[in-house]
């Protein structure tokens, strides 16, 4: 009578609809890659520059920061929420990590100082996210409004802490430089992204928490009737969003050798775009981490392709806009039948 379902495939989504959405995004990503290969400029030996290992890993490094933010953004959007404060939290994190390393150096061995600086940045970022989540959950204010306020207020906090100045991290042998030296490495950045993607993919598809996140976004009222801890779930997803924005901030500070209170502007939009291209519904309840990764890579490959061909960066933005609409429209078409 009831068919015994096949094993849940990792990352791949639980329902037929989700799998179709992810397959569509994957197909689009492959199409863009093929196009990129086709029109790629060639090196002296006739090989395609796009396909060079260095170029491919460059793409990964470039998408890693937005990619990391969009992992947690997927969770937020799955609950039916949105987090506009991620760019500001990134800026706060860059400022805190740079400040601890350069001004408030607690003393001690270099690894210890670096650990303290990073933990401080992550703690502040997570707290900022959790606080917003608590306001959303306890006062039932719309996430858009709360995180819009957060986006303004947290940016203010970052600027206030740093006196609205960049905090430079040098290239010498001091602790700050060591920190930058470690965390600006391509493999470290890409490794962070891949590691976090695995963790968040597992979190969403294999844990009770992930299931609760989707249920809350699918039908909050029914979730209340089913006894789910809705407030705790909401606080947690915004805390996770803060945490990953903090991680992104640390990587940003290392890569750019500075804490910058004006960094991360409009990152929330890029992250939301990646999530949406990946097939997650803005109304919540349905979406996958794999989809978000594919969405992130699509933007990354597209940017790389256009830059390799010397396309004007303003045109690049216009092309991106078209891709976002196309991706979502195609997924939408597939769902009309439902």
């Amino acid at each position, binding site marked *: *009578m*009831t*068919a*015994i*379902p096949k*094993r*849940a495939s990792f990352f791949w989504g*639980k*329902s*037929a*609809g989700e799998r179709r959405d992810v397959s569509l995004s994957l197909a689009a990503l492959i199409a863009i890659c093929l196009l990129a290969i086709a029109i790629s400029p060639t090196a002296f030996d006739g090989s395609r520059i796009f396909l060079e290992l260095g170029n491919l890993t460059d793409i990964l490094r470039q998408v890693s920061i937005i990619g990391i933010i969009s992992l947690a953004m997927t969770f937020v959007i799955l609950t039916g929420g949105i987090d506009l404060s991620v760019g500001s939290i990134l800026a706060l994190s860059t400022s805190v990590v740079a400040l601890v390393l350069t001004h408030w150096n607690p003393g001690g061995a270099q690894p210890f100082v670096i650990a303290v600086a990073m933990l401080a940045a992550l703690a502040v970022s997570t707290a900022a996210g959790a606080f917003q989540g608590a306001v959303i959950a306890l006062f039932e204010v719309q996430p858009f409004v709360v995180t819009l306020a957060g986006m303004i207020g947290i940016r203010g906090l970052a600027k206030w802490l740093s006196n609205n100045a960049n905090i430079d991290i040098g290239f010498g042998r001091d602790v700050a430089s060591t920190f930058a030296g470690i965390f600006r490495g391509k493999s470290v950045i890409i490794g962070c992204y891949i590691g976090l993607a695995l963790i968040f993919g597992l979190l969403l598809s*294999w*844990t*009770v*928490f*992930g*299931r*609760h996140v*989707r*249920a809350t976004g*699918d*039908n909050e*009222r*029914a*979730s*209340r*009737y*089913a*006894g*789910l*801890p809705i407030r705790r779930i909401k606080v947690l997803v915004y805390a996770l969003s803060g945490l990953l924005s903090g991680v992104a901030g640390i990587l940003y500070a290392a890569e750019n050798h500075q804490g910058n209170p004006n960094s991360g502007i409009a990152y929330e939009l890029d992250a939301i775009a990646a999530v949406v291209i990946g097939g997650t*519904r803005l109304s919540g*309840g*349905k979406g996958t981490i794999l989809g978000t990764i594919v969405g992130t890579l699509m933007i990354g490959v597209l940017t790389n392709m256009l830059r390799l061909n010397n396309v004007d960066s303003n045109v690049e933005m216009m092309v991106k806009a078209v891709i976002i609409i196309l991706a979502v429209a195609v997924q939408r078409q597939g769902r009309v*039948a*439902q």
Partner: protein
Amino acid sequence: MPQEILRISDVDKSYDGVRALRGAGFSLLAGEVHALMGENGAGKSTLSKIIAGAVRADRGSLLIDGRVVTVNGPLDAQKLGISIIYQELDLFPNLTVAENMAIANHQFAEGGRVRFAELDRFAERFLKQVGLSISPRRPVASLSIGEMQLVAIARALSMNARIIIMDEPTSSLFDDSVERLFRLISDLKSKGVAIIYVSHKMDEIFRICDRVTVMRDGSTVGMRAIAEITPAELIRMMVGREWKARERPVRQTGDALLAVSGLTTRKLRDVSFEVRKGEVLGIAGLVGAGRSSLGAALIGLDKWKRGQMTLHGRPARPDSVRKAFKLGLRLLPEDRKLQGLMMQMSVLENCTIADLGQLAPDGVVRRRREVSAVQPLFLHLTLKAASLRAPVGTLSGGNQQKVLFARCLLANPEVLFLDDPTRGIDVGAKEDIYAIIERLAEQGKGVIFVSSELPELLRCCDRILVMREGEITARFDAATATQEDIMTFATNPVSSGEFV
């Protein structure tokens, strides 16, 4: 012989590769009330939606007045004189009654200026026809479900329809509103309006319909004149097998299981009752009488202002849903779409969502474990689902309700509060649900069964409480009570005859 005004034939329709209709057909004469019957998932709703232009068929032809027409949307259908009243009322909650009636109405040109006084007069005319005396300026969200149902009917009338499709129009109406609706239907009939009446309620069909078309598994099984068929034959056509109505079970009830005294909440006043082991306690009352509020209070959703509760004689208080669950209480909510199901999630996920804490104590969900916990319940509930992985939204109403039953029963609760569990589901599925309730009573559980249909309460319950305006107004032994007794205590003595 009256003229045939609608004929639809050879209709195929698939959703995501699942066939909903297979060569279905239907024909309608002017001025007749034509019942469309079938079990859940038989394709009645899909066929209705195709006629109303809300869904497009993959194949098939539609003739209106003998001419082939194409309908590309609801507005097209409206212009042909077809309107539909959905079971899930498609009103705009934040707009007023009058605005709801004018919106998407082809008589009001788009882009035109709104003259509110004119709009009011327009709305009032049709509200009067359905016997609703409310201000057309009231927002729909402030109305009761029964009133909304009548507004939806008034809206259909306001579109000058010649063909009105009514999908379970009485599912949220109580007796005198139903009478009013029936009078309205015979009135419309005499004016030559044809009505497609989708319902599961046998007594209604035999009272008001002229002919009946039965569907099964996406195909049309047959068409009969009501005068020439018996209910048993009709049911046989629907289910395709022999069907026997169950007798009222004789039960021995045990010790007191749950006792509530003086329960007072925002919506309840001084409610006291007890449920014994193995007892089915019925709750009757109009919509809004506090039936659902009682469920909300027992399950920890509504705050208790006053009152005591004991379980097995020991004091207990459901302060939160979690706490109520721990005490062994479960609720099957009234509105499965709004309060029950996560429509985008799979059947399996919907079954286990409330009990993941027990199924996955370490926080890691293991599918195999979920499946083995759910599968015995599926056999029990005679639940048919193509796959546990299918989104629950693709199931029929009756099967969706069974998924919610599975969710309730997964943790083997002691007391179940079933809030109108047979609302809007077909005869076969209703019988299944009665059987489930009986079995739960046999297992010694306490079942509280809320229903708008008195016959089913009289048949399934041991005792029946009647509620009105948040209070219990009467208690009956179900073996001796009559529908009239119950109605007397359910309706307001001062303004009896008013609508719910």
